[in-house]
């Protein structure tokens, strides 16, 4: 069990210009002791995967409010696979209709968080997924 901070990437793909939610999550993760690489608005799936690779993050969170999740998330997953880092858990936050959630989970997304989700729940989910991945890798 290490005390090294968990490294997480928070990214905001797509064209909508609202990153308030993403920033709130970034701060909540920081307050929980994580190092959050925050890449800002309008990230392409390629940029997200490249940042995840460079930064060696243990989790990726994408915030999508534009409704383009069905187009963007598969591309993020493909890009991560191309860079050989598909083991990194991906979380999706935003306005995602119930009928789309199952499809995202099917793609390999670790969890989907709707607008009402408490930040504490998100922080716990990220921490849990990362600790499980670390335990899996070392034993």
């Amino acid at each position, binding site marked *: 069990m290490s005390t090294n901070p968990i490294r997480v990437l928070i990214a905001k793909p797509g064209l909508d210009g609202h990153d308030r939610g993403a920033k709130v999550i*970034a*701060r909540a993760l920081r307050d929980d002791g994580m190092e959050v690489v925050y890449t800002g608005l309008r990230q392409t799936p390629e940029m997200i995967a490249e940042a995840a690779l460079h930064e060696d993050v243990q989790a990726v969170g994408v915030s999508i409010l534009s409704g383009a999740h069905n187009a963007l998330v598969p591309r993020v997953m493909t890009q991560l696979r191309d860079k050989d880092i598909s083991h990194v858990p991906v979380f999706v936050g935003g306005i995602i209709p119930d009928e789309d959630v199952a499809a995202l989970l099917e793609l390999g997304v670790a969890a989907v968080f709707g607008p009402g989700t408490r930040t504490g729940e998100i922080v716990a989910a990220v921490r849990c997924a990362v600790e499980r991945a670390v335990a899996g890798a070392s034993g």
Partner: protein
Amino acid sequence: MSLAKKIISGDQRALARALTFIEDGDAASERILAELHAHGGKAHLVGVTGAPGVGKSTLVNALAQSVRARGDTVGVLAVDPTSPFSSGAVLGDRIRMRDLAGDKGIYIRSMATRGALGGLSHATAAAADVLDAAGFDCVLIETVGVGQAGVEIAANVHTTIVLMAPGSGDDVQAIKAGILEIADILVVNKADLSGAEQTRAYLRSTLTMGQTARAVAGHPHSEQADTPSPGWEVPLLMTVASVGEGVDELLQSLVAHHDYLASSGELDNRQRERMRAIVELRLRNRLYTRLVQQVSQQRFDALLQAIVARETDPYSAVASLMEDID
């Protein structure tokens, strides 16, 4: 294949893993660094420092593109502060570096200070060595936004760029903090804002005074890597980093400074000082670890208790601990 070999062959995932090991102080990190050492020593290590928000990341974004345009590859280390209230951090320098995305000749890594003071993290110098060994021609290190403290960067790089912006009052702060003394290149960024000309004039006069004072004092050729170089006149440049204005001139100054360092022998001095610092730090840490291993916790606690009770003092306690180990 070892992680080090993968790094040398250009594997960015291996590089990223190694940097994490180094940041985390993982047992693997020393072996990786040892194996990489023979491959280093070629990169131009450049520090970019200045007050918070002065435009360091934006300048790195622009400068890295200019370096790439010459055909050289670039590694970036961007340091942001760890929160004093949790061990966490929000690392946001990448926001300003989006133009660098998608270029395999560029690698950007964000680092948190993890409690280190002085504008870098304890792992930054070793991380720069890794990027060097990985074959990046130029390594740009962005420090934490430093106002008063933190001139550590100069001891860790070959060329230090100090950034100022107009109208912030940073110039006076910077002079108090001694930050001008570490500049190999001084840049007034945000030259599009009003007051840029005054800031430049002010810095110009301060620089001239400093250089005259040194000349008069016959400033000896110091061993300290962070003293300015005799024979190098610090250029004072203006940039608008957000649109790339003045950045080609900055690159020219960077190249000129590297040429100057190489031809004057100063490059060798700075390399030696960097290595000295690395060796001394490791040695100190190892000796301390050995001490801690040899002194029992009870003995340490008992001494501490006695110090608190004013039965002994910290100085005698340390002397008596030293007797335990040799």
